[in-house]
């Protein structure tokens, strides 16, 4: 009995796993917004997590947008109905897609059980996430300069049978001409596995 209780104490539930993924996306997307210079650096505040200092936007509208999107995403992650989350960076003037960050979701383990849990230690997951976030921070070294006013959007690729929530709309896939992709490390909670890929315009 005691072992079972201890087991459940350290285990990660399906909802908890979705929360971990959403937390990663929140930090990851904020880090991208800062590192790629989409918004003025003054509008970011440093926050510590995963043993890193990550710069988070203080703009209320961006915060609200991200929290609503990620809250909705969390539900879909629990339902196993998301395939991919895409952060699309577009030129404000020409509406050209400049860069796309794909966060590919894979589901691991038995899909039937509602109370699915994972025994993977949280520290290990956080370390994996930290490595990805570091790679994101270092991506400025090879990604081309976004030399125009840019905005971002989040597109969630779901299964066909998902109900469209209010205030949500269907979007067109964002494709980039002459694109080049770089795959980052992946992390897994043993329930959700997430791959991060950046696709950018190749100017050569």
């Amino acid at each position, binding site marked *: 009995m005691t072992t079972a209780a201890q087991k459940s104490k350290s285990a990660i539930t399906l909802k908890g796993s979705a929360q971990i993924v959403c937390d990663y996306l929140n930090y990851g997307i904020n880090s991208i917004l800062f590192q790629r210079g989409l918004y003025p650096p003054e509008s970011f505040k*440093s926050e510590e997590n995963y043993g890193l200092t990550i710069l988070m936007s203080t703009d209320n509208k961006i915060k609200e*947008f991200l929290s609503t999107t990620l809250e909705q995403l969390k539900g879909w992650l629990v339902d196993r109905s998301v395939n991919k989350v895409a952060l699309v960076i577009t030129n404000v003037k020409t509406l050209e897609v400049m860069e796309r960050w794909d966060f590919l979701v894979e589901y691991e383990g038995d899909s039937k059980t509602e109370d699915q849990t994972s025994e993977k230690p949280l520290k290990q997951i956080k370390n994996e996430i930290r490595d990805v976030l570091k790679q994101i921070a270092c991506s400025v070294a090879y990604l081309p300069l976004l030399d125009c006013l840019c905005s971002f959007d989040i597109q*969630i690729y779901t299964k*066909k049978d998902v109900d*469209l929530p209010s205030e949500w709309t269907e979007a067109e*896939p964002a494709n980039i001409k002459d694109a080049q992709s770089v795959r980052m490390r992946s992390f897994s909670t043993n329930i959700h596995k997430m791959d991060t890929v950046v696709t950018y315009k190749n100017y050569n």
Partner: protein
Amino acid sequence: MSQFKFWNDVNSLLTMEGPVKGPIPRWQKKKGSDTSSNSSLNNSSKLRSLSTSALNSTKTPTKGNENNDYQKNKTPRKTPLKTPSKKSKTPTPNKGSKTPSGDRFIPSRSASNFDLAHYKLTHDEDESDSPTRQELQRVMFENLHGGDVSSQRILSYKNKAPSAPEGFQNPMRVIYTQTKTPASVKSSTRYIPQAPDRILDAPDIVDDYYLNLMDWGGNNILAAALGAHVYLWNAGTVELWDCSRSKRLRIMEGHSARVGSLSWNSYILSSGCRSGQILHHDVRQRDHRVATLSGHSQEVCGLKWSTDGKYLASGGNDNVLNIWQVVNGGHYSQTTPLHTFTAHQAAVKALAWCPWQPHVLASGGGTADRHIRFWNCNTGSCVNAIDTKSQVCALLWSLNYKELVSGHGFANNELIIWKYPSMTKVAELTGHTARVLHLAMSPDGTTILSAGADETLRLWKCFTKNTTKTKDNEKVKSKPSALKQCIR
């Protein structure tokens, strides 16, 4: 007949002697129009002379007026005419009015829609609907987006995030451009030579940010690791020390991967490894391993004992800077870090302890970070941070002045001398053609040695002592401040 006339006209244009390159002189045109007997031609020849003199770009109005006739003559003669054809474009209308064109088929260009025709020719309408094409599109989409199109929806939240304010420029520009950062306005009181005092060749120096390959000893011998050899240089003579043949004092093992950084504290030698471990070796003992520190998850690339031997600073590729406190009564450190700083956004290689405030540490981050940060290790707080706009590879404090020097990578590959604590630029020393990897200082503190990835070692005489009054004043000033720090 008129065609022959036209040919003559063209030939005369082609075979014209002298440098008639531009529009035909007015008198010639006049002459040409005089030869034609038709009075109505006079009218249009005026038009010709006008348009030719007003450059070729004015062909549009004529084109609009007498389009059909103009096309008739132009089409068949397009190839042989080449450049003069431009000139003959305008004369054609008047000739064309007389040309009998019934003997051949000449399409009317103005009446046909070329864009549409091209589209119809190159585009097969049936093709886009063919099942194989649809299948191909579907497979392509699946490959691109990792999922079946038909079973997938792309959703996004309607209330989009705002874009950056108008007029905002990407601050990351500094990484990509070579613009110089503004230097401080205040001019320095002493002369700092802009060119290196001496340049030494350093072939095969490893261009690796994470290694520390050069130092300048207290006995004024300079050591640099080039490839598999260690070179020692002493004022003009270069002695080559082959690692395998020279007298080696001892080998100390214990690391599983390469050792990129070393630091001495009395008889303790601390070494940082790619595995993230730091080992303390007591060089006097047979069992040399004193302690193992596991505070980094990735390669340790910066390792420095403070000048008073109280703290050890270690920087890693995991962007972490750790401060370890010395063990009471020993020269090695405790195994848990006193402070862990995660403020740097890139690997921390450049570390330097302040010579006059032994608890102040300067640390510099890599490309994604570009900051020099100052830490008070007694309190564990970040005192100051400055964006250098470039990768910080090395840092050194001056012994003679309240200044420090930093070595940078892209874009200027320069050394910058900063005034401390105001952090205004005293001088920028350029010369290296690749990033400045390492810095070392001569024992008297007057000369800086920099090793660049361009395989040169450069000596800069930038901290020469001047024995004037101002310097003595500075020394006096610095003394009480150090005392104050001790009391606090």
